[in-house]
């Protein structure tokens, strides 16, 4: 089973090439001396310097981070609450309808979500800016959080909460002292997911932002329409770098935690 046949090598190479060649090209050209994106004129890091001096990019990056932070936090709170009710409060009238409605935005085309939010904001006379993007991102990220958290809650032994009650906790204490610490990893990964989704979103942000707020994806998109500049390549490379480091750290940490736990369990039983 473990033999590496030539077929395996070919399919592996093809798959990875398909996934990563575009990104590799982007990274390579970010170090290009020339202003022309498609002509190689020697190694340079000057575009990174240019990027740092570009006020409008920095402003957009700051807006994006703010939006991502607030929307993912809000989405995590709302999504966790929704997941808790869906999983824990058993059957109530309309439960199926509610859970369907929570998950529907997952499959809803973003254009429709964006458009309907835009109409809502116009209807209630809310000025479009950072706040409206935060609200819009909270809306669509919340369902992802609730999916992640409810999958943890389903596998969570309900007798833990009962034990807390049995030992004299009020229902709120049981939630705070037992449920929250145990589902915390799922809540955190829900938050991270919401954060990334918000960082990444172009369509909904375009619908719901006003002249005062431009997010980084919007900025990139609009500048690319005027022609790809090497600055964009540099910016994207930084993003790829951050994501790669983040993913690596997360997987190393969780792998270590798992192997330590297994070792401890083994030691406990012997």
């Amino acid at each position: 089973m473990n033999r590496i046949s030539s077929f395996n090598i070919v399919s592996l190479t093809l798959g990875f090439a398909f996934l990563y060649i575009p990104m590799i090209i982007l990274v390579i050209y970010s170090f290009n001396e020339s202003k022309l994106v498609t002509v190689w004129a020697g190694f340079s890091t000057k575009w990174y310097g240019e990027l740092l001096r570009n006020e409008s990019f920095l402003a957009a990056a700051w807006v994006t981070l703010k939006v991502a932070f607030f929307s993912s936090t809000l989405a995590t709170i709302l999504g966790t609450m929704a997941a808790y009710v869906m999983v824990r409060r058993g059957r109530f009238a309309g439960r199926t309808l509610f859970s369907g409605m929570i998950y529907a935005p997952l499959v809803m085309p973003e254009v429709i979500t964006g458009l309907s939010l835009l109409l809502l904001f116009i209807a209630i006379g809310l000025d479009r800016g950072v706040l409206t993007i935060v609200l819009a991102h909270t809306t669509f990220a919340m369902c992802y959080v609730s999916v992640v958290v409810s999958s943890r809650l389903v596998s969570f032994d309900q007798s833990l909460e009962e034990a807390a009650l049995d030992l004299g906790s009020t229902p709120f204490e049981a939630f705070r002292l037992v449920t929250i610490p145990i589902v915390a990893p799922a809540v955190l990964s829900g938050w991270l997911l919401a954060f990334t989704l918000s960082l990444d979103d172009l369509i909904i942000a375009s619908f719901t932002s006003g002249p005062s707020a431009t997010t980084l994806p919007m900025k990139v998109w609009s500048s690319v329409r005027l022609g790809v500049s090497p600055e964009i390549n540099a910016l994207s490379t930084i993003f790829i770098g951050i994501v790669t480091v983040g993913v690596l750290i997360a997987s190393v940490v969780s792998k270590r935690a798992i192997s330590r736990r297994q070792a401890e369990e083994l030691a406990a039983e012997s």
Partner: protein
Amino acid sequence: MVNSTVFAPWEDPGQTPLIRIENVTKRFGDFTAIDDVSIDIYTREFFALLGPSGCGKTTLMRMLAGFETPSEGRITIDGKDMAGVPPNKRAVNMMFQSYALFPHLTVWDNIAFGLRRDRMDKDRVAARVEEMLKLTQLQKFAKRKPHQISGGQRQRVALARSLAKAPKLLLLDEPLGALDKKLREETQFELMEIQEKTGTTFVIVTHDQEEAMTVASRVAVMNHGKLVQVDTPERIYEAPKSVYVADFIGDVNLIEGLVASVGELAELTWAEGKAPLIGQSGASLKAGDEAVFAIRPEKIAISREEPEARNRVRGKIVDIGYLGNLSVYHVQLPDGSYMKCEVGNRSRVSRRDYTWEDEVWLSWTDTAGLVLPS
């Protein structure tokens, strides 16, 4: 009084029970989980709820803990009606089947959890936790997390945690189900010792009849949400009131027939041309009733010569099971039915007195068997 040394508060009409379960019924939709059950449980009792899975024993226990409310009837603990009292306001603690140890807390913090909820001051919490660790011999593991200790140790942490608040009543839901056989037997005796030391009233739910018989002062046998019989382990085993109880507890040979006569002993006609079987009469039988003769395999003697006992049948050995401490003989009667007979292996060198295909006599005394309504 000679009787004062024997613990049997249920026989003393002057005693007030700690727990009264009065005509309790519990329905989940159309399904009746508990059907008109009444039980009195006394202080310091080790009371077992025994039955197959789905018989309602766990539901009954969860009603004592406050996780379910009765559809009808009343539960009082220490004289107080428990209707509307939530689990966190009851002087009742429960040890869960899954142990339900908090995985993010150490053994020490798990045991302290309930004490801290009572706003008890730090020194008293520490003293009580240490006391519990000592009682369950867990001092060495205080700083460990639940996944860092073995299954048997986890079971003891769960016990220590549920006993820490010194509850009036401790509920144990299949407490030993996750342990292997040897550890389970050791732990049964530990549980009894701890129960005696602390003087707490224990109610244990189990489907393991051996476990119930070992630990309990009284056993309540349940089936399909109904209470079948409540009695001491000895009486449950030796004087079951129904075929269900006789069959559920231990091994038993059951022979169907018709009651021929009822006096001090009952006679049961069971086969054409055979002498009737004689045994003690169960509840409310009269001549002509359909009945079942119940006889435990260890009460049957096996012999090659025709014995003098009035209860005797002849058959052929078809199977021998050697269990070490005893041997089980499966004997086929002429009518095709089978009987089981157990013989203790008291001497080490086994003389194979009987072997396959041997024609043998099975016999038992007049009071060894029971005639029960079918």
